[in-house]
C-alpha cells in the first residue's frame, strides 16, 4: 500500500529525514517510535503534504501512485489521513459543516455521489457513538474550545467518518488520560480492516497495549534505526532509546 524509499526531507534548511525507507502493506499496523526530534512528526507531515517540508531525495508511492506529486486534498481523497498531534482550532467554521464539506469533497474527487444531509447525519451519529463524543461538539467551531482529549477523539472521529485507506496517527496518545486513551484506541481498533493500514507514531509503548501493531520501527537520526515485532516496543520501554544502533537497520 505504502512504499517509502530513501526519503530525505529538509525543514527550514535543516535535514530532518536522512534516507528513511518503510513499506506498509494493506491492513497492517506499523508503530513508529523514537526520541524527541527524531523526525516522527516530519514523516507524518510529509506524507500528508504540508508546505515547508522539502523533499530533497527519495520516493513515496501510495497504491502505486507518486504521493509526493499530489496536493494535500488529493492525498486525502486518495485515502491518506493524518490525525494531528496538535489539531488546530478554527473558530467560525462549524464542525458539522466542515465534516460534510470534507467528506463530500473527497467523494466528488473520487467520482462518487455526495451525501445529502440525512445520509450524512446518519453516518455521523453512528461514528459518534464509538468515540463517545457529545452531539454538542458538532455545533461548535472546528476544535474550538475542545479539551485536549476531545480534540484527539475528534481526530479519530474524523478518521472514522472519512474511512481512509492509510491513517497516520501522530502522537494521538499524548496528553490523554487512561480513559481517553482507551476510547481513542477503541475508536482505532473499530476501524481496523483488511484494506486499511495504520502508521501509529508514538513515544510510548502504552498505546500499543491497546492498538496491537504488526511491526514496530524505531526512528532515530532521520532514518529507521531498528525494526521488529511488538516485543521491540516492550524492549524500548524497559531500556530506552540509548542502546539502539544509529544506522538504518
Amino acid at each position, binding site marked *: 500500500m505504502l512504499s517509502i524509499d530513501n526519503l530525505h526531507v529538509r525543514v527550514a534548511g535543516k535535514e530532518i529525514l536522512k534516507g528513511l525507507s518503510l513499506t506498509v502493506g494493506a491492513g497492517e499496523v506499523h508503530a513508529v517510535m523514537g526520541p524527541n526530534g527524531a523526525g516522527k512528526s516530519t514523516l507524518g507531515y510529509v506524507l500528508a*503534504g504540508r508546505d515547508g517540508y522539502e523533499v530533497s531525495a527519495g520516493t513515496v508511492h501510495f497504491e502505486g501512485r507518486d504521493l509526493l506529486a499530489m496536493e494535500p*486534498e488529493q492525498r*486525502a481523497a486518495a485515502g491518506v489521513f493524518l490525525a494531528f498531534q496538535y489539531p488546530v482550532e*478554527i*473558530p467560525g*467554521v462549524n464542525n458539522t459543516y466542515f465534516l460534510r*464539506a470534507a467528506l463530500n469533497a473527497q467523494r466528488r474527487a473520487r467520482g462518487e455521489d455526495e451525501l445529502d444531509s440525512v445520509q450524512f447525519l446518519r453516518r455521523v451519529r453512528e461514528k459518534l457513538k464509538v468515540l463517545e463524543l457529545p452531539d454538542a461538539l458538532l455545533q461548535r467551531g*472546528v476544535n474550538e474550545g475542545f479539551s485536549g482529549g476531545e480534540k484527539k477523539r475528534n481526530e479519530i472521529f474524523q478518521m472514522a467518518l*472519512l474511512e481512509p485507506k492509510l491513517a497516520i496517527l501522530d502522537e494521538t496518545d499524548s496528553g490523554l488520560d487512561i480513559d481517553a486513551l482507551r476510547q481513542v484506541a477503541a475508536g482505532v481498533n473499530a476501524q481496523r480492516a483488511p484494506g486499511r493500514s495504520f502508521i501509529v507514531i508514538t513515544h510510548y509503548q502504552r498505546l500499543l497495549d491497546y492498538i496491537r501493531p504488526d511491526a514496530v520501527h524505531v526512528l532515530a537520526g532521520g532514518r529507521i534505526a531498528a525494526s521488529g515485532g511488538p516485543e521491540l516496543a516492550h524492549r524500548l520501554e524497559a531500556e530506552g532509546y540509548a542502546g539502539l544502533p544509529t544506522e538504518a537497520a
Partner: protein
Amino acid sequence: MSSMLLAAPAAEDTRAPLPGTGVAAVELARAAARARLRDAHALADPRADTWRYMPLRALESQALPAAPVPAGMPALEAVQGPRLVFADGHFIASASVLEGLPPGVRWLPLARMQAADWQRHARLLEREGEAAPDDWNLAYARGGCVLELADGAVCAQPLEIVHIAVSTGASAWHARSLVRLGRGARLCLRERLLGAGAGVASLRTCWQLGDGARLDLVQQQQAGPALRLLRRDRFTLAAGSLLRLHALELGAALSRHELAVRLDGTAAAVELRQLSVLDARQHAEQVLDVRHAVGDTRSDLRCRAVAAARARAVLHGAVRIEPGADGSDAALDTRNLLLSGQAEVDARPTMEILADEVRAAHGASVGQIDAGMLFYLRARGIPLAQARALLVAAHGRGLLADIGDARLRAGAEAALDARVAALE
C-alpha cells in the same frame, strides 16, 4: 466648492417635489443647508484626521443630478414582516408593507409626512454632523422615515428598511431618518442597501434610545460595485439602554460609514460588530466615535476587515471616556485579513481616557490566512479555493454569531458567504 455639491437638483422640485416642500420649517432648514454648501470650500478637509485616507476627488469630480423616479427595480424576496422600501431615495409604496406593526410602533416615510409631522419631528431638520455631506443630505434628502416606539413598546419580530440603488447613470440620492425608542422599548430592525445602481448616495439617521430601551440593528450594505456611499448613524443612549449593532460593508466602490455613539446615561451599553469584505479597488472607511459621557457605561467594539485584490479598508476607531465618566468599560478590537500583496488595511484604534478607574483595552492586528488552518482543511480533502473561502468567511462569521434573530443571522451569514465566494 465642488461641482458635486453644487449639482443641486434645482429642477427636481417641479418634477417630483422633495418631502416637506411648502412647509416653512423644512424650507428654512434646506435653504440654510444650501447656503452653507455654497460657502463651503471642499467636501471635507483632507488634512483632517478622519478624512486623510478618503479619495475625495472620486466624489468631488462628479456633477450629479438628482436620481429620477426609477422606472423599474429589482424584485425583492418575500418577507414575513413590515418593510419600507426606497429606490434611489423614492418611497416605493407597492414594494413596502406598512401594516402589521405591533401596538405602540409607528413609522412614516418622509414622503407622507404632513406639516404637523415635520413640526413634531423637527429633529430631522438638524444636521447630523458638521461636514458638507451632512448639509448635502439635509438639503436634498428624499428618502427615509420616522420610526417611533412608544414607552414599553416591543417589536421583537424584525422590521426592515431597504434602500435600493437603481439608476446606473451618474446621479445622486439621499435619505435621512429619525428612529426613537421610548422608555423600555425594544426594536429589532434590519437595514439593507441593495441594487446595482451607480452614482452617489448619502444616508443619515438619528437614533435615540430612551431609558432601558434595546435596539438590535443589522445593517447590510450590499450595494453594487459602482456606488459611492456616504453614511452616518448617530446614536444617543439613555440610562440602561442597549444598542447591539451588526454592520456589514460588502459592496460599493467607495463607502464611508460614520458611527457616532453617545452613552448618555448610566449603564448604557453599545455592542458593535462591524465587518468589511472588499476586493477589486473597493475603498471602505469606518469612522467610529464612541463617547462615554457618564460613568458605568460600556462599549464593546469589534471590527474586522477582509481586503483582497487592490482593496483598501480603513478604520478610524475613537473611544473617548469623558471627565467624570468613572467606572466606564471600553474595549475596541480590530482584526484584519489581507488576501493579496496589493490590498491595504489602515486600522487606527484610539482611546482617550479622561476619567478615573476605568477599564479600557484596544488591540489591532493585520495578518494573512493561517497556514496551519489551511493545511488542516486541505488535509481533510477540502480543495484549496474552498478551504480559503471557508477561512475567510470564518474570519467574519464569528461576529455574526450573536445576532439574536435566527432569520436575520442566517441572512447575514448568507450575504457574507456570497460575498466571500465572489472575491477576486
